[in-house]
């Protein structure tokens, strides 16, 4: 397959080609959709450890004495009150409550935040950040400098300890540290998009391929392997982690999307607060739910959801769950269909309808 003319290569491009990755243009980069197969890669992440090239993600820094005021006005979660070294997942909303993007804020100090944003939204986010900052602090797009490697799976802490040092294996979720790697400063964070232990490494592109190869070499006895975008998607769907553009967008709010826990009404004013508060008090007109299909047929983005003859919502994401071996999905539905155990029908492109049932998220839970 030939390169897409406008798509760029990540610093790990050669590694993907060598590993037999099927490369596709995605968010402006040539990235592997799969290597050995989506289901096999999914199981590798659930049972061993996988490496993901997520270099397409954007990195933006807020810096300055007034930065705290700026960032807390910009996002719904409280990224200021936490200790330096904490990572905070948060939506960033418009004044009308809609989600500009969802992102992770890393608090480096009381005057500096490092932010990881979605690749497809990076330019939109940067423009929004600059506009909303009104010159009150520095906003710097560092995306060109960084590659990003996610290391996820039950064996990830062991592998990370071998490569980055023992201390990284004992860090609790959603913390980060900076470290030296071959003379370059890297950021290691215990964050991820799979529900598995491990972390994500922000690494200057000059040493990204070295780090990838070292992780592959030192993880061979741990079952390490590269994982493509396909399994990244099925892994996050099992956890009901939102994908911007599918489950959330400019027209949906965090309250509708089941992200109430990321909206901190008590921290002072922020974009969208009034709308979110009203939805929180009155109950939103739709809820994002996770469901399982009780029958055959895989739900997909935009399939209609019915109760009898009435359309009550639409599917935002769906797949065959490689872990559970049943079709699962995420959908917006009207009340009262959001409660666990409620059933509705999904229209499979007009072919027929299949029953689905709301489950408590995440539908995938590790056997204890």
């Amino acid at each position, binding site marked *: 397959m030939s390169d897409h003319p406008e798509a760029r290569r990540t610093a790990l491009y050669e590694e993907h080609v060598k590993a037999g990755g099927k490369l596709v243009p995605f968010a402006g980069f040539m990235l592997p*959709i*799969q290597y050995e*197969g*989506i*289901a096999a890669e999914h199981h590798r992440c659930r049972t061993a450890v996988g490496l993901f090239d997520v270099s397409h993600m954007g990195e933006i820094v807020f810096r300055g004495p007034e930065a705290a005021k700026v960032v807390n006005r910009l996002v719904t979660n409280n990224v200021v009150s936490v200790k330096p070294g904490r990572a905070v997942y948060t939506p960033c909303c418009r004044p009308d409550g809609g989600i500009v993007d969802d992102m992770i804020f890393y608090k480096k100090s009381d005057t500096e935040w490092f932010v990881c944003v979605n690749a497809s939204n990076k330019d939109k986010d940067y423009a929004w950040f600059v506009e909303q900052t009104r010159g009150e602090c520095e906003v710097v797009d560092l995306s060109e400098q960084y590659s990003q490697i996610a290391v996820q799976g039950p064996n990830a802490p062991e592998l990370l300890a071998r490569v980055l040092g023992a201390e990284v294996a004992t860090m609790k979720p959603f913390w980060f540290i900076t470290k030296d790697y071959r003379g370059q400063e890297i950021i290691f964070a215990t964050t991820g998009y799979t529900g598995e232990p491990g972390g994500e490494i922000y690494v200057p592109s000059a040493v990204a391929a070295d780090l990838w190869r070292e992780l592959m070499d030192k993880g061979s006895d741990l079952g390490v392997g590269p994982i493509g975008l*396909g399994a990244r*998607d*099925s892994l996050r769907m099992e956890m009901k982690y939102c994908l911007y553009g599918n489950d959330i967008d400019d027209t949906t709010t965090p309250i509708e999307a089941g992200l109430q826990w990321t909206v901190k009404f008590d921290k002072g004013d922020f974009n969208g607060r009034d709308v979110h508060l009203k939805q929180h008090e009155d109950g939103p007109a739709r809820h994002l739910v996770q469901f399982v299909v009780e029958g*055959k*047929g*895989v739900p*997909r983005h935009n399939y209609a959801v019915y109760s009898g003859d009435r359309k009550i919502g639409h599917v935002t994401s769906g*797949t*065959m769950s*490689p872990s559970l071996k049943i*079709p699962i999905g995420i959908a917006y539905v009207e009340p009262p269909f959001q409660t666990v155990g409620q059933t509705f029908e999904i229209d*499979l*492109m*007009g*072919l027929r309808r299949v029953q689905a049932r709301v489950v408590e998220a995440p539908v995938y839970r590790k056997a204890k």
Partner: protein
Amino acid sequence: MSIPKEYRFTDTHEWVKVEEDNIVSIGITDYAQDHLGDIVSVEAPRVGDEIEKGEPIGMIDSQKASTEVFAPLTGLVLESNDLLEDDPSVMNSDPYEEGWLVRVEVADMEQLDELMTAEDYEEYLGRLEEE
């Protein structure tokens, strides 16, 4: 990419193989299964269904996408491949033999002439890859 010489093909990547007289097998091509990746569920028309050329008759779900199957010919479904119910991945591993979808009694065998020959299909795939 393998393309059996004696089969006929559609531009939506279904194949037709004449079994005897006016009885044909229908399936999806090697190209189609390769593009779909791991097939996880197959919805075939039922025995006794009348199918009409160009109309959707089933759905194939892979780990990454879902796609409709279109009838390459008009006819009556005589048999549906039970094997796919238990192990849909047969469509990946053997798309032209074990992975057949349905057997159909065709109303008008002249419809077969409207389909691509192996040579036409190979050329068609070549053009697709260039795009």
